[in-house]
């Protein structure tokens, strides 16, 4: 019976892929190579109605997005085991799988589900992980992402970041003077988007607090820029900066006690740090050039964009000593830097000398070497997953803003699926409890 189903699946594999794309599954724009081949077999489920989520597919996508795994297409699988005792190592060796994930979902209550899964090492013919994860119907995606995290951790030693969230702004332009801006919060892969804020005026630069409970952003709702802190759970909002001129680019200190942002109340854009408990402001930069896009390197150093050298470049300034140092020397435009959690790699918007394209590049802060990661042309707003394995950035495709996910090793690339026409300013959450 299983074999029969498989043959059928194989025959319609192409159509199935098309269908998935149409339904908004991750669109693969570039394949993976040299990544570990892994098979995530469709999970068993005995219920009368099909589950609302294809959990094995979610996990396969997660692993692919890391750039470290190459999930084997279902159409290539020779059997569909749902428990490790059903795994025939030869079936998987033949199709080149190094690992197999099998599992079955069972209903354990009115709205309670449990996924029992095994991770199998094909070479050693050995089960390396066997666990179960449970949750409600609305948590099936969470269960799948959780499974991805566990498999990823087991095989790479790196904490998985698939159970994280993404903030971004969607713009729906009806006419020149009529655009609806919404602040969206979704799974990191774009699924389950929820609108947190809606405005007829631009919303910009959303940024997650390190505890994952608050968001800082810029809103033009009063027809001028103001910085708000938005409490995700309650929806409560606190306006924290509404000075004359620019109020922009908020960035949380890693300890969550301070917010760095940009004000031009003294005549031109300067970087300030606000202590959130006392609301006390401290001016950090003092230069007639544009200073903007602060981001933290530890709790005592800010990295920012400045055109004090004539062109936008990245600088860092120590808050205690005031010492300032230029960090970028390659390219004629480097801006909007973000740091990896370990502080060793900087990601930024980069334009090479003599080129028109803005691309996302990484720079090794110890060795200084720079690597261009993207192949598109109006790339901006990079945001890095908390484990540094993936990054998401905004770019343009056929005149509309899209979010692209790339693995930092450069192997995986995909467009984040969405129901919106125009997306921008993604911000990746920290690890969430």
């Amino acid at each position: 019976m299983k074999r029969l189903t498989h043959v059928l699946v194989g025959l319609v594999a192409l159509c199935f892929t098309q269908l998935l794309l149409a339904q908004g599954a991750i669109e693969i724009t570039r394949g993976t190579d040299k990544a570990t081949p892994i098979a995530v077999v469709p999970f068993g489920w005995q219920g009368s109605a099909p589950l609302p989520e294809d959990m094995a597919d979610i996990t396969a996508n997660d692993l692919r997005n890391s750039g470290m795994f190459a999930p084997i297409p279902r159409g290539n699988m020779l059997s569909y085991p749902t428990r490790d005792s059903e795994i025939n190592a030869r079936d998987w060796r033949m199709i080149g799988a190094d690992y197999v994930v099998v599992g079955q979902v069972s209903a354990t209550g009115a709205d309670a589900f449990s996924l029992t899964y095994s991770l199998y090492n094909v070479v050693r013919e050995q089960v390396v992980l066997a666990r179960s994860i449970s949750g409600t119907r609305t948590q099936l995606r969470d269960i799948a992402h959780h499974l991805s995290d566990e498999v990823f951790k087991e095989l790479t030693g790196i904490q998985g970041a698939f159970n994280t969230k993404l903030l971004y702004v969607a713009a729906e332009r009806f006419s020149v003077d009529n655009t609806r801006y919404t602040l969206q919060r979704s799974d990191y892969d774009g699924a389950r988007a929820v609108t947190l804020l809606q405005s007829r005026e631009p919303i910009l630069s959303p940024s997650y607090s390190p505890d994952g409970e608050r968001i800082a952003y810029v809103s033009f709702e009063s027809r001028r820029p103001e910085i708000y802190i938005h409490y995700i759970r309650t929806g409560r909002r606190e306006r924290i900066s509404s000075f004359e001129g620019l109020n922009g680019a908020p960035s949380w200190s890693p300890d969550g006690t301070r917010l760095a942002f940009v004000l031009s109340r003294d005549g031109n854009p300067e970087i300030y740090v606000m202590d959130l408990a006392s609301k006390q402001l401290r001016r950090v930069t003092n230069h007639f050039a544009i200073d903007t896009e602060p981001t933290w390197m530890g709790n005592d150093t800010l990295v920012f964009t400045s055109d004090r050298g004539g062109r936008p470049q990245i600088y860092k300034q120590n808050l205690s000593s005031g010492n300032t140092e230029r960090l970028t020397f390659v390219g004629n435009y480097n801006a909007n830097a973000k740091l990896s959690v370990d502080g060793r790699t900087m990601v930024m918007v980069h334009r090479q000398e003599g080129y028109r394209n803005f691309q996302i590049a990484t720079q090794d802060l110890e060795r200084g070497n720079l690597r261009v990661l993207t192949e598109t042309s109006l790339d901006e707003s990079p945001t890095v997953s908390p484990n540094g394995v993936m990054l998401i950035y905004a770019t343009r495709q056929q005149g509309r803003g899209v979010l692209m996910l790339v693995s930092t090793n450069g192997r995986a690339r995909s467009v984040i699926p969405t129901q919106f026409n125009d997306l921008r300013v993604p911000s990746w959450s920290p690890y969430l409890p």
Partner: protein
Amino acid sequence: MQVIKFGKAAALVVAFGVVVGCSSKGGDTSGAVDPNAGYGAGSNGAGMDNGMNSEEAALRAITTFYFEYDSSELKPEAMRALDVHAKDLKSAGNRVVLEGHTDERGTREYNMALGERRAASVQRYLVLQGVSPAQLELVSYGEEKPAAMGSTEEAMAQNRRVELRK
């Protein structure tokens, strides 16, 4: 797009004004474009029937000022229009908003700063003409509110602008 059309209409108005030498009442509609200005039909004999006045009306109709890429330097044609706006602002004492905008190239927050730099450049010019800084509010929208969609050179040129709004 619209602004360009305004500009053309304004040029026509000037041409008519000079050729026909008919009257117009500048300044009465607080800078809004009057499509009938210069045609003479609506003249109520208030005097000042000369081409200069029509040209002033045409310049007054220009409320969007364009910039080169990555530049906040005012162009000569912008200055001529701003001279008229400065005169109006000084006599009326009203408050206006200078909205700075950029094209889509570069990062959004950097463009926010660049848009403000452009608005500040217009502000500086108006203040030099004697307008009180208190009459001028600066707001930068960066690249967030493009006048024209698309990534063509033409669209981007229309987006690098400062709009004077009453």
